[in-house]
């Protein structure tokens, strides 16, 4: 069994190993840089200890194998983006040139540099070790954050965004970057991406064009990937879309990957999660069956020793019954309150 829990100081070495195991170009916020990862852990520890302000808050989690303690995945939430340094994205727009007299009506797609997402909370830094991309691990890792936000919504902004990796090839070559960014900044996408990951994104952004761009001036290849998700990130996109996240026309300024967005209160898992009291623990032999046996995200209600797991849950008089293995992994016992939501939106009522 795996659970998702806040990152700890002793996760640094496993996290580095995980990142070196092949995050690759495009997962900007997890650079292969020990000092940077240490800084992120430090920020997260301060955040969980309630010693940070919203602008600096970084809620970082790892997925750990309960039996071995092995760290197999990572994910995070930024309390608010763009409050320390400008947060840039391109807004995809349209300019119409029309003249009834000349019989002209053309629509030209445009890219407007914007700071529209300033102050939004951001789901970020999701990575799951390839060996563990099985079953429901990916969904658990991603959606654990939604349950956390549901439980501690006072710490988050009204709007939540997630920037998804844009299209690039195996060598990290992004057609959008090649057609746009490269002209303004003589470096490879991988290098720009790395600079972004180590906190220099706004510096890089300062070198980018500030005026609106006519996307029709870009290569056909570049135009085709605006708002498109990298092949490997499509499952992550589907998971978020199931929860109500939508692409609303904002894309990354470097690779044109889509920013998905949703109001916190409209996220399906947030809306439909509920707090229940644990009234019974089920032993292995008492595995629930039938309609009640849907895989369910469960977390405790305290911020200390927080953990999310996928448990088997059945409703009981005055509360719920939880399988004993999950309860132990999550550190909850009979009488405790837990927040739950079925993993799949289709199972929620």
């Amino acid at each position: 069994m795996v659970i998702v829990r806040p990152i700890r100081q002793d996760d640094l070495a496993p996290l580095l190993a995980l990142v070196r195991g092949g995050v690759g170009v495009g997962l900007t916020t997890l650079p292969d840089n020990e000092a940077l990862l240490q800084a992120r852990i430090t920020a997260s520890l301060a955040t969980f200890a309630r010693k940070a302000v919203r602008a600096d808050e970084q809620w970082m989690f790892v997925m750990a194998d309960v039996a071995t303690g092995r760290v197999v995945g990572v994910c995070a939430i930024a309390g608010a983006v763009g409050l320390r340094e400008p947060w840039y994205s391109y807004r995809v727009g349209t300019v119409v040139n029309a003249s009834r007299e000349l019989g002209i009506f053309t629509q030209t797609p445009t890219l407007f540099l914007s700071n529209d997402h300033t102050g939004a909370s951001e789901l970020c830094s999701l990575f799951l070790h390839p060996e563990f991309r099985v079953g429901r691990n990916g969904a658990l890792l991603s959606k654990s954050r939604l349950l956390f936000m549901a439980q501690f919504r006072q710490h988050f902004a009204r709007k939540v965004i997630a920037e998804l990796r844009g299209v690039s090839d195996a060598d990290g070559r992004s057609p959008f970057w090649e057609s746009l960014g490269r002209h303004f900044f003589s470096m490879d996408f991988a290098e720009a991406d790395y600079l972004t990951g180590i906190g220099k994104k706004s510096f890089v952004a300062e070198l980018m064009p500030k005026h609106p761009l006519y996307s029709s001036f870009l290569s056909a290849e570049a135009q085709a990937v605006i708002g498109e998700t990298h092949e490997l990130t499509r499952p992550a996109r589907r998971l978020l879309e199931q929860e109500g996240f939508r692409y609303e026309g904002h894309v990354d300024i470097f690779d044109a990957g889509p920013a998905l967005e949703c109001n916190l209160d409209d996220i399906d898992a947030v809306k439909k999660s509920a707090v229940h009291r644990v009234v019974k623990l089920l032993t292995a032999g008492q595995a629930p069956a039938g309609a009640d046996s849907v895989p369910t995200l469960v977390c405790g209600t305290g911020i200390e020793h927080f953990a999310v797991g996928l448990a088997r849950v059945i409703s009981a008089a005055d509360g719920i019954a939880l399988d004993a293995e999950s309860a132990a992994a999550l550190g909850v016992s009979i009488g405790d309150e837990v927040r739950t939501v079925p993993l799949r939106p289709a199972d929620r009522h």
Partner: protein
Amino acid sequence: MYVLRTAQPADLPQIEAIAAKSAIGITSLPPDRDRLLEKISNSRYSMSVDVDVPGEETYFFVLENVATGEIVGTSGIAASAGFHDRFYSYRNEIIVHASQELRVSNKIHALHLCHDLTGYSLLTSFYIDPALADGDLPQLLSRARLLFIAEHRQRFAEKLAAENPGVCDVDGNSPFWNAVGRRFFGMDYPQAEQLSGGRSKTFIAELMPQYPIYVPLLPDEAKLAIGQLHPDGELPFSILMDEGFEPDTYIDIFDGGPTVEARVDTLRSVRYQHRSRVDGHFASDGTEHVSIIANTKAEHFRALLGRVRVGVVGGAGIGLSPDVAEALGVGDGDIIRSVDLVPPTTGEMAW
């Protein structure tokens, strides 16, 4: 003898023939009888009225072989570019994208749609019979306008501009238009121009992209066309360059050709021209200067290439030969303006 004079309605058939031959880039000489007649009428009207500040006046001149009555060239001036409206150009700009932190500084070339040249006086309609292009007549055709402007300063702005044709292929397809305007119009430039039906370019310009164009994003052939002159435009362009026009700041929004500009007072023919009284003596002493000579009239403006004699002992002004005086329509005591055909390139006035 060739004389530059104001265009008259009787010149229409010959001007029409010239317009049919002229390059696509010379939009101020449309191959359209009604518009040409209007151009002549506007010019005649403009010459006849008193003007305090430049407005919608246009001035149109023809170069005539006096012996045959043949018209071999045209030139013109519009008093105020974009009058009643705007005159659009792209301004070449450099945007510096710099980051101290990253130790990077990039100069980015961008084209900014602007109205900067609105209200400038425009030199227009230059055409010379190709058979006469190699001689001195192009100098007369182009620079006599500057003498006209020098004499009638209240009719013109302090600054002048002139559009020059940009590069295009034999079918009139412009690489600059194909990369820029075409995206917003979905048609070839000749077609767009035709569609606008002779209305001012402003009409089309208002449909053009309003945001700056980042040059690095343009295809190479369009980049190369920026500020690039059509070979047909080399002659009038070189005359303006010699006069001191500045070619690097503005380009035409449609074909990317260079739009040159200058302050009137800085132009060579304005700095080195003389305003003199005609003296009846055309004696053999003094010195002779091959000059562009113009009278100081408006409706009856005339200019030609000829000799003036200066420094005549006992003379009170400038000497002209009788045939020159007659061709200019001036007599003893009248005022003329003249400038050496080859003025000094630097330094003092020649006389």
